[in-house]
């Protein structure tokens, strides 16, 4: 395919009478120069950080061209002949999308000038059909822009021992809260005013469990809802023994947050 096209070229040039030029064109394959550029983007603002080993390659059958990164952040390929090339950007710090570059002879070539090759580039997808082209890369000022995919991170983060991360665990939080209650309750009881203490003691006698939880929920008062006996309600019966209702209310209260305990508890 390529060869035949080139032969066509030579054939088209010869009748023009430019014997020397034609001879040169016949022996020398038309060449062009291709430039790719790394544009400054949000993720790569300082292009000077790119290492000097960064380079780009054009590869196709029986041909590989390589160009180093220039001071103006471009890759300049000279002497590129017609063909369909895979463009790879090799960089130690960043990844770039591979491109497909087609260098093709112009469709109509009039005039005796040396034919200028037409350049077209698309994004390509590895492991897909070569003709499955992505978005076309526009040729701006004779330059194609490379598309940054992202920075490379070579290292794995080691999970570090961190007290905060342990504290973030809900189980640990629950345990801590209950521990605080457990340890703090006796002091709370000691600091109560005598009247309240008496009240509390009274209730403690009837129901130790409720007392504990009640102390946690505030000033020793039970939540009004706490008196609601779910088990009894669900069973369809009215109040049973004191003990049963107290246990279930305690369970309920434990489930509810300790914030709702402002109201004074009713005496049973």
């Amino acid at each position, binding site marked *: 395919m390529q060869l035949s096209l080139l032969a066509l070229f030579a054939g088209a040039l010869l009748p023009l009478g430019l014997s020397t030029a034609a001879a040169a064109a016949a022996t020398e394959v038309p060449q062009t120069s291709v430039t790719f550029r790394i544009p400054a983007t949000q993720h790569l603002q300082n292009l*000077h950080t790119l*290492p*000097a*080993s960064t*380079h780009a*390659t054009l*590869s*196709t*059958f*029986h041909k*590989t061209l*390589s*160009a*180093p*990164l*220039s*001071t103006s952040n471009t890759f*300049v390929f*000279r*002497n590129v002949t017609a063909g*369909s090339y*895979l463009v*790879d950007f*090799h*960089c*130690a710090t960043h*990844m770039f999308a591979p491109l497909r570059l087609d260098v093709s002879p112009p469709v109509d070539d009039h005039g005796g000038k040396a034919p200028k090759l037409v350049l077209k580039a698309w994004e390509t*997808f*590895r*492991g*897909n*059909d*070569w*003709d*499955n082209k*992505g978005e076309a890369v526009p040729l701006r000022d004779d330059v194609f822009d490379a598309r940054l995919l992202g920075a*490379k*991170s*070579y*290292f*794995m983060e*080691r*999970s570090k*021992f961190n007290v905060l991360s342990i504290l973030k665990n809900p189980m640990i939080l629950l345990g801590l809260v209950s521990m605080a209650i457990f340890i703090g309750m006796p002091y709370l009881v000691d600091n109560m005013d005598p009247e309240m203490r008496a009240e509390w*003691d009274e209730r*403690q*006698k009837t129901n130790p469990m409720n007392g504990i939880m009640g102390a946690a929920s505030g000033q020793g008062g039970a939540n009004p809802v706490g008196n609601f006996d779910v088990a009894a309600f669900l069973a369809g019966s009215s109040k049973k023994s004191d003990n049963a209702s107290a246990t279930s209310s305690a369970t309920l209260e434990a489930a509810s947050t300790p914030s709702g305990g402002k109201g004074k508890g009713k005496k049973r």
Partner: protein
Amino acid sequence: MLPPQLSALLLLALPSAVRAVFQDEVGHIDYHYELLGVPQQETTFFHRPRRDEKASLLYTLSDVGVLGAVNPKTGVVLWRQLLNGSITEGGGFARAGEGENWVASALGKSVHAWDAVNGRNKFWTDFDGEVKDLEIMEMTENERKDVLVLFDEDKTHSTVLRRLSGDDGRVVWEFKDVTKDIPLQVSNNVEKVFVISLWGTPAAYNLKVTVLDTLTGKRVDELVIGTKGDVHGKEDVMFVGANSAAPIVAWTDAAHKHLRVNVLGTKTRQEFMLPDDTVSIEIHAPHLVQSQPHFLVHSKTATGNRADVYHVDLKTNVITKAYDLPLLAGPGAFSTSSSGANVYFARVTEEELILVSSASHGVLKRWPLKIEAGKGSAVHGVSEVVKKDGPGAEDSFAIRSAIVTNSDEWLLVRNGEVSWTRPEGMTGAVAAAFAEIPESEELAKSLEQEAHSNPLEAYIHRVKRHIHDLQHLPAYLNSIPTRLLSSVLGTDVTSTEGELVRDSFGFHKLAIIATRRGMVYGLDVANSGKILWNTRAFDLNGGRWNVTAAHVNDTSGQIAFRGSNGDFVVLKTDTGEVSYWNPPGPEVLAQSAAIVDHDELGTLSLPVRLDGKIGDLQQPGVVPRNTIVTRNPQGGLNGIVFTADGDVARESIAWEFSLPKGQHIANIATRPSHDVVASIGRVLGDRTVKYKYLNPNTIVVAATDDDASTLRVYLLDTVSGQILSVAKHEGVDAEKPIECAMAENWFVCTFFGQYTFQDDSAQSIKGYQMVVSDLYESDEANDRGPLGDAPNSSSLGPIDNPLGVVLPSVVSKSFILGAPISALQVTQTRQGISSRQVLAYLPGTHGIVGIPRILLEPRRPAGRDPTPAEMEEGLIKYSPAIEFDPKSIVTHERDVIGVQKIITSPAIVESTSLVLAYGIDVFGTRVAPSFLFDILGKGFNKVTLIGTVLAITAGVVGLGPMVRSKQINMRWQAPM
């Protein structure tokens, strides 16, 4: 087919199972020698990269084709460029214009200009011819400095000189001369450009100097200078003073009796006597226009060296001898440094560094030189002299000299003190091997003695030995605290530092590297790859050492290198002491070497001749049991077997593998020497077993057909020569690297392919590919194929079944790779239980990638999601592309250039494989393909562990009394 975005996503998600390197392991598990290659005298220089700053850098284009900049203070490489992408055998040109911020280089047919500070490219151009010389035009009609490049265009038989613009590499003018002359060099002074070429016949060349106009490149004059038959080739002519005010051309007669010098632009030839017994001469002169036109002739005799300094009169072009520097015994080197008009010559002898001015013979300053033993003596160097104006006539001088020694070290001497040394000789490595640290011979001897004596004596001997060993106890007890502390803090165990002792993990080994320049290096793998010793095996005088086999004998602690020219050298692995030595001959005699079994020595290497034969072996006891596969001159392979005939082992060709016409072998892959298989089958998700085809006598041969652009991958049985399987790949580019690797029951091949699918989809593929093939005994699960459970089988006589030879069932898949790869190697572990990785060098990004086997799995389901059973087996959905995840790069951020080969070695712990890559750089690391499952890594925080235990203990101790008192109180409290 997947939508491209999705497949890209999948790819990013896939290698999450890859084990990456942790940041804190860098420098702990790996080591890297960032090298340039041995600097060449003409292409090494100090240069100030910024005009207004005083600091200068050291630039060199080395003999392996690396151009780089080194900080002369620290010896750290600032930037490197491998000029034509592969290792060269010297040559090339590099120059920098005074006060310019760029460095120009030329190699082969390319001309580059690089930013002197950061190594970025300023411009580059490829031309048709081969570059013969490169010069900077210091004085041009405008501010800019340009580059003059001389080309020899073979195609058109012409000498072409191009002046390239120093800004963008554009050709300012071109001078073309269609002659058969041999272009030698270009030189210029303020007004003219001179092209010097050899003119005439090889018997008696004359020098032709073509004088060109600097503005237009038009020929102004042409001078022919007779040489009276002294010059027979381009190496007979020495050129100097390329950019000095009065450039000269100099040559000697064959007997080194006379030196003949011509000032370019004149017709006269001036003759000077050389000292008697001169073996070779070198000429040193400044390169700056403003420098005084003085030059120094360094003449070496067999035992010593001396120098003569000459001055050129700018008006009359007459050369006069100014003074001479006396003959000193031993080798020496001279270097030139110029600042402004002053020219200084620095002389490096074995004991001293002497500085003289070009104007007079008085020694300006001398420094005693302290180069430590083992670094060799100076061969050549470059210097930078700084003059500080002192009070009165007391000027003080400071000098920095970068010296290349005869043991291929590059060192910087600052006022006589060595400030850094770079082991540049390790570049150009051609062979390497891992060796165990030799155990102490006494222990081995006494153990042997015990084995051979009667039980009682052996027992007594053993008790005595143990009592004797008690003397090491105090030292051992002493070392316990430090070991404990370092173990807790996670630092290295320091007790083995300084001595070579095997460790319990098997990480402490030696890596022995042989280079093409005839040097051998011994590296301590566990100790950050520290160089333990270096030895020059052969003095090759610029020749090349082709090592065909590096063969380690761990029982005797020796390594043998067998070269292609009949050379053979045996060294001790721990000291580098040469115990046997046979120098190379002039002819290439061997194509490779075969490692065969030996009754007493264990193994032995035998040279394979160029005709693919080994010859009958006369040594008694050597009868190689295995078939040896050699390349025959017809481009095929021979299988050679030996049969014992008395004391002689007779050679015979068992089989011959000839390729069809047009095909030739591109690559051969053999099994690694340590290829243990942990399991003979693979358990599938449904609990059935697919049995692996494990034939140890197989090799993979990749053969290309250039006309048809096809690649055929043959799997050969080396006992019978039978082709077990063949795969044909179309549209394969034979000019790009084709490589294969094999292990266990699978092999991989990589190549550049461009072809259209053979199904009707009309799709085509272009890119670097990797094909992986698994071999099984049968297509079916739970089936061991025709051989069944037979305990023995033979490739030669298996024909007990009507199907003939047992052929493996092959499953293959191909993948498109994200980058070209080379130097394939498979990891080796002790038991083969860990999964394997394919290690490969990425020439694009200068790294080494570890591709996990789980990705390269031919049984990955294509076009559908894996079934639960397949998922259980660890199979992931096939996606045609493999993008290399940065986390799978074992070299991580390091820039490892020019890797030619990677070798691996198992450690004692199963999880880990030791890796060494060589070529230009030397890089070593440890990889754990299935994670570190048998040792605690650095991530195991012993401090936290101990801290937690201590905290809990403290808690128990503190809370115990509290709880106890509470319990007692409870008992004593009346129930309420």
